[in-house]
């Protein structure tokens, strides 16, 4: 029995794979090839890779410990005078006498961490709800969709502000979770939409006709084919996530840990407060945020172009 099922499954997989292949090249390989020829995606990926390397090797790249206060920097430090570049501290000091360059470098790590985690958590729950709604249909679908309606009735940043404000005490995790939750309804609706389209498609019909179990149809046939739009959206979401995190910091709802080196915090708290004393405290983290956000936006748009079946020759 199980052997028969196994055989059947393999047969269906072959069939569905061939349907997706079209010209004999797999959909994903073809998309990958087009992605590599897409200048937008390449530029975006290069920027991200650069910052990713900095983030991973931060302890090796950074000249100092990002939380250590240096006597030579704190010596002349006042609210109206934050030391600029000196020997050993190429970017100068931050408002607490710490090495600004090291904080910028470690900032890559923290910022990526916040962005990636917020995106992944949002993606996970969005995919879960979207898949359940799309696969189950009926009243489950209605309930989930009405719930996303309620969440989408508020502009995303406003929803994030509300969530953090309602949490009373904000920590790094409230920020991550708030930014993640905001994206759940978007992912859920997107996935549900493609799942519904998949449900009507020929390869699902074929699988059903061959007697494949419902769960296997959902997990092996509908879900993998519906993920494209969600993956593109996730890439674009990353940019929004770090911008939203920065905005929350600016509004005083960010991570209260003064040792945390994260660009959004550095820009939204110190950068803005000391803008007239030392604008670099705002310029550098802002530039870093813009570049990373730009990188993910470019990659996302490139992916959308490359994965769009309309662009297949």
């Amino acid at each position, binding site marked *: 029995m199980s052997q028969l099922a196994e055989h059947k499954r393999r047969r269906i997989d072959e069939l569905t794979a061939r349907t997706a292949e079209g010209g004999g090249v797999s959909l994903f390989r073809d998309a990958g090839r087009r992605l590599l020829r897409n200048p937008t995606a390449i530029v975006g990926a290069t920027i991200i890779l650069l910052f990713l390397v900095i983030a991973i090797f931060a302890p090796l790249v950074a000249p100092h410990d990002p939380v250590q206060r240096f006597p030579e920097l704190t010596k002349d430090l006042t609210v109206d005078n934050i030391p600029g570049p000196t020997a050993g501290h190429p970017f100068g000091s931050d408002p607490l006498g710490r090495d600004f360059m090291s904080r910028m470098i470690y900032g890559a790590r923290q910022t990526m961490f916040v962005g990636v985690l917020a995106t992944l958590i949002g993606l996970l729950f969005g995919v879960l709800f979207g898949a359940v709604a799309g696969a189950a249909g009926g009243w489950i679908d209605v309930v989930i969709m009405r719930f996303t309606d309620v969440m989408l009735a508020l502009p995303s940043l*406003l929803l994030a*502000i509300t969530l953090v404000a309602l949490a009373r005490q904000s920590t790094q995790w409230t920020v991550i979770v708030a930014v993640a939750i905001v994206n759940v309804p978007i992912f859920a609706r997107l996935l549900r939409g493609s799942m519904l389209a998949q449900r009507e498609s020929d390869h699902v019909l074929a699988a059903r006709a061959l007697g494949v179990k419902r769960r296997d149809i959902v997990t092996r046939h509908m879900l993998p084919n519906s993920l494209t739009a969600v993956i593109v959206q996730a890439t674009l979401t990353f940019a929004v996530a770090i911008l939203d995190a920065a905005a929350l910091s600016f509004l005083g709802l960010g991570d209260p840990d003064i040792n945390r080196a994260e660009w959004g915090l550095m820009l939204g708290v110190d950068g803005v407060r000391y803008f007239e004393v030392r604008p670099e405290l705002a310029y550098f983290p802002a530039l870093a*945020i813009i570049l990373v956000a730009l990188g993910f936006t470019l990659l996302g748009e490139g992916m959308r172009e490359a994965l769009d079946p309309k662009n297949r020759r």
Partner: protein
Amino acid sequence: MLRVVSRRLIQLFITLLALMTLIFFWLRSLPGGPVDALLGERATPETRARLIKALGYDEPIWVQYGHFLKNVVTGNFGNSIRTGEPVMDVISRSFPATVELAVAAIIIAIGLGVPLGYLAARHRGRALDNATIILTLVGISIPIFFLGYLLKDWLTQSVHLFPPSGRISTGMDNTDVTGLFVLDGLLTREFDASADALWHLVLPALTLATIPLAIIIRITRASVLDVLDADYIRTAEAKGLRNPTVRKRHVLRNAMLPVVTIIGLQTGALLAGAVLTEKVYNWGGLGTLITDSISGSRDYPVLQALILLAAVVFIVVNLLVDLSYAIIDPRVRVR
């Protein structure tokens, strides 16, 4: 048409009801409950007991929920914790400032965005197109509060071109009619007040317009490119219609549909952006009110009303957008 409107209104009502219910139960599930949130942890048991009684928190939760719904329907959101005034008074005082700012921003975004997007599409692949695309990409990647500080630093500190903050110069003797200062000046013929208010409006409106502007440019460009490829444009040109006629009646009109949708969706971005922009320019509207209500101890009655207001505005604007399809696109009218 009427059926569509009534169905959407019912949907709006259900969404708002669900939102209110969520907020109600969330506030009550806070650690220590709303009373602790109001009083802080050092309150004496007597004060606590008095407040619990005054707010009706000693009643069963369903009774409280009923009261809450009744109050919301009658527009009674209680008093602000920070100032003690009725929430509706606080909100209606700040409302016009944000309306003025948001309207100015959307005028800038549409007024610049549609022509720029159109021009970029007509000059596809050339310098103007590329420059526009790069500009829009930066526009959506820049934290707008940073842009606000940047503009403020360059144009009010280094060059004294614009006032750095506020809605009107102190000492300007303006009469308050609608609360929209530019409009008030025109209505009461105090043109100097109008000009002064407009002067204060430029930088905040530009800052707030950034993201909608970038998105409107991109959508217009993409939409015009789609339409330019369409058969009916070739037909129109082939039958010898003059260029301006083709552009206005065939290209722009058909390209506007997605743009209108996006404009509706951007009201959301405007509401959220207003919170950031108003803080940068000390604007004194709803955004400032939100910031004030979340700094330090949270002013829950005000926050709760503001959240509902934002949802209502967002949903109603998008309803209006859907209805405007019928005006732009005759096909929708038939359906």
